[in-house]
């Protein structure tokens, strides 16, 4: 069982709904396989652990070339959501709602519950000091389970020997 000494670290730098999930899914899979997990939230990635933002992560259709109308069951082949439509008020709310529905359909929990599962499973979560200072945040802004606000250097020290995934 070589995995018992394996360490993996994720750097979450994006706060879009679709960019929150990769670390959550892979981190959870790693814990399930007995791999030590550390997650470092930086820049917009801090939204994933920010109490006020966590449930409000969104997915904008504008400039998202992968978002095809066929995802909604329309027989439109490779036609994307026209960018011009993406600027209509309510479109971002709509695509976010739609993606959340898709995520729920495969049995994956919402972001807050996922983070809680990771914490309960032993993942270590940290917030980036530079971003925290830049945005005027503090530990009070973060959900329970976030261990500390650390510098990039601290992160390097604590992930020695780990496989690092940047998202």
């Amino acid at each position: 069982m070589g995995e018992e000494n394996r360490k993996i670290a994720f750097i979450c730098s994006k706060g879009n709904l679709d960019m929150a999930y990769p670390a959550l899914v892979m981190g959870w899979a790693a814990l399930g396989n007995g791999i030590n997990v550390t997650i470092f939230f930086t820049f917009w990635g801090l939204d994933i652990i920010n109490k006020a933002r966590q449930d409000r992560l969104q997915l904008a259709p504008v400039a998202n070339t992968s978002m095809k109308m066929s995802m909604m069951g329309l027989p439109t082949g490779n036609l994307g959501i026209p960018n011009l439509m993406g600027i209509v008020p309510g479109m971002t709310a709509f695509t976010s709602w739609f993606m959340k529905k898709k995520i729920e359909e495969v049995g994956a929990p919402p972001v807050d519950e996922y983070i809680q599962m990771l914490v309960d499973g032993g993942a270590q979560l940290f917030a980036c000091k530079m971003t925290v200072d830049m945005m005027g945040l503090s530990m009070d802004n973060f959900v329970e389970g976030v261990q500390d606000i650390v510098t990039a250097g601290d992160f390097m020290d604590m992930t020695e020997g780990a496989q690092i995934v940047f998202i």
Partner: protein
Amino acid sequence: MTTKEFAGATMEVNEEGFLVDPQMWNKDIAVAIAKEEGIDELTEDHWKVIEFCRQSATDNGAAPTLRQITSGTGITTKELFKLYPKGPAKKVAKISGLGKPEGCV
């Protein structure tokens, strides 16, 4: 295919040590695999998880994921990771005589 002896019975196992045929499983084998996985004693809560997994695999044809186990048994994530430390997804499935869970959550 390799074979391995558990509780006096010779079993076919795959390269990761999972039983090939879930039908060959019994409680003595579970105890033997658990010992090998570092769990010396299977408590009532351990069995609750194992029985749920066996039932779920019979109903759905695959070992349940961790989230299905916690929502199906009422055992919390924290407790589950305490019962089966260091990799509950694989450990639970292996001790239950099933294949690896087919699902990500």
